[in-house]
């Protein structure tokens, strides 16, 4: 493999890595979920916290993305919305990720 081919390969992998990073940032930014007028991120941390608290509490308080408290009166509904949003975003990211994988 000559130097120009190596450079081409290097450029291509840089482009793919940047596109992947952008797709992941887009996924993170789409995780915003507004619930009870508070802002949450529908990520693994929030889902795990709500799923855990829901096992022992009918209502509970969690901190939103700016560390302000929010009463969760209907945990089941909140958890469903979090999971729906999380999976909607990650499915989109998964599709994009597959297109990047095919390019490598």
């Amino acid at each position, binding site marked *: 493999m000559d130097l120009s081919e190596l450079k081409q390969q290097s*450029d291509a992998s*840089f*482009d793919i*890595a*940047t*596109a992947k*990073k*952008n797709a992941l*940032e*887009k996924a*993170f*930014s*789409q*995780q*915003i979920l*507004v619930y009870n*007028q*508070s*802002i949450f*991120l529908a990520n693994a941390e929030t889902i795990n916290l709500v799923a855990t608290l829901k096992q022992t509490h009918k209502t509970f308080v969690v901190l939103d*993305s*700016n560390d*302000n408290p929010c009463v969760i009166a209907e945990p089941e509904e909140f958890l469903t919305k979090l999971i729906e949003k999380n999976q909607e975003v990650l499915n989109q990211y998964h599709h994009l990720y597959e297109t990047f994988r095919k390019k490598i």
Partner: protein
Amino acid sequence: MSTGILIYCFDTDKIPYHPTTNFCISQIKRYLNLPVTVITNKNTQKNIQGADSFVIIDNQLNNRRTYKGETVDWYNLERACAYDYSPYDVTILLDSDYFVYSQQLKQLADTSYDFLLHNKVYDLTGRNSFNYRTRSLIPLVWATVVIFKKNDRVKSIFSLIKHIQNNYQHYCTLYRIDFRNFRNDYAFAIAMNQLNVNNFIPVKMAMLPTDTDVVKIDSDSVVFKYQNKKSSITKQDVHVLNKEIPFNV
């Protein structure tokens, strides 16, 4: 309770901002379907399309900045009056070069927060061009997107921004800011610091730097090029800093 968008647009001799504003308005109508008010001057107003209402002012002309190695006019001295100019109870104040490709801002306008903006951004070209942390004592916030409600607290934030603008050199020295030309981002950052306002949009704003050319733009995507590398984004809100955008391509 009314919710709407507020945009500033003033053409300068070197840079016509109205094409950017017109595209910004069309994106808002497509994705957010909210009323748009443009604050502008008489000369620029005739070229603006799609706005629901206008606030016509004689804008201040005495600020400049470096753009692509040249010193150009920068008519950015009216943002502190956004609270007074806005006809809405909940205002989404946008830079005219912030293009909406999702419904996210509508969600963020429907919260208990009365003042929200970004304090984190990322460079879509992967070069981390927006790291200004060492250029002042105070972390930068971005006044590109500001969601605010009308109440006494927010009124006092904007009053303080006006005061900071009028005494900008003093605050530059106090916070060791090395952008001596007035920059709204720092005025907002200082006001939030002084009034201990700590609520932010919890995700990073996508940015395309000044040296990145927009090759193609439409209502769903932006194709951009930098250092012979081409890339694109789809259905993602973005702040485009290069003012030469080929809207008709």
